[in-house]
């Protein structure tokens, strides 16, 4: 059996059509995002896949990003999360939750004149690390914080 072909088919199926196009260089991650809802990124099940789909590669660390969230969330259905980036040229912010069925919760594109300061509320299925991914001046940075969840917000 041609194992290489097997492998290619497998990874192709997992990434979806857009993923294949991105991998093939036909569509850049940026273009895929501009085309509307970034399905491959929102479908990503692992951190590596999510970062790849967002075009973030291996983000660095930064002490200029604050992830404001509670240490303990009593109700996983409503967890307030705020991301504040004082990095100059902050243009993109994403919130990722490691142990949710899909990691990416929300992403924001900030035009010039919009400071990196966003708050929202997310669902968490269980205690997990929460990541804030920030793109500033063309570079990606990421910080994380563990939030303990008493009552999960994703089950039924």
């Amino acid at each position: 059996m041609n194992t290489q072909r097997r492998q290619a088919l497998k990874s192709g199926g997992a990434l979806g059509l857009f993923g294949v196009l991105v991998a093939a260089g036909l569509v850049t991650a940026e273009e895929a995002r501009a085309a509307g809802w970034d399905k491959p990124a929102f479908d990503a099940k692992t951190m590596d896949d999510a970062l790849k789909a967002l075009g973030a590669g291996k983000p660095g660390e930064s002490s200029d990003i604050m992830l404001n969230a509670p240490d303990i969330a009593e109700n996983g259905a409503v967890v307030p999360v705020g991301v504040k980036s004082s990095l100059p040229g902050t243009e993109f912010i994403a919130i990722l939750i490691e142990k949710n069925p899909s990691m990416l919760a929300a992403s924001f594109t900030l035009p010039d004149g919009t400071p990196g300061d966003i708050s929202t509320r997310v669902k968490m299925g269980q205690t997990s690390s929460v990541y804030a991914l920030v793109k500033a001046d063309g570079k990606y940075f990421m910080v994380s914080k563990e939030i303990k969840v008493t009552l999960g917000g994703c089950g039924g």
Partner: protein
Amino acid sequence: MAGPMRIRAASNGTETEVKVLMSHEMETGQRKDPSGALIPAHHITELTATHNGRVVLSGQFGPAVSKNPYLQFRFKGGAKGDKVTVSWVDNKGDKRSDEVVVS
């Protein structure tokens, strides 16, 4: 059809702070109804905020954003009487757009 958003936009002279409370189920697609059938996902996918017609924020939501999503952000500029508009689209093609005057 989803209900109206509650939007508040307040200017402090140099910046405008916007708070939005959307009205949406944000169904994850992971839950089951009492008969055991999967409830299909129904959530906001894209969101845009504009100030006097200029985009000040665009966002994408996955199903992990809480029911009746809350969003808070700031932008430079904005004066009392200016208009801030927030609109969203969900994965079923439903849309909603609401406008507020900066206070």
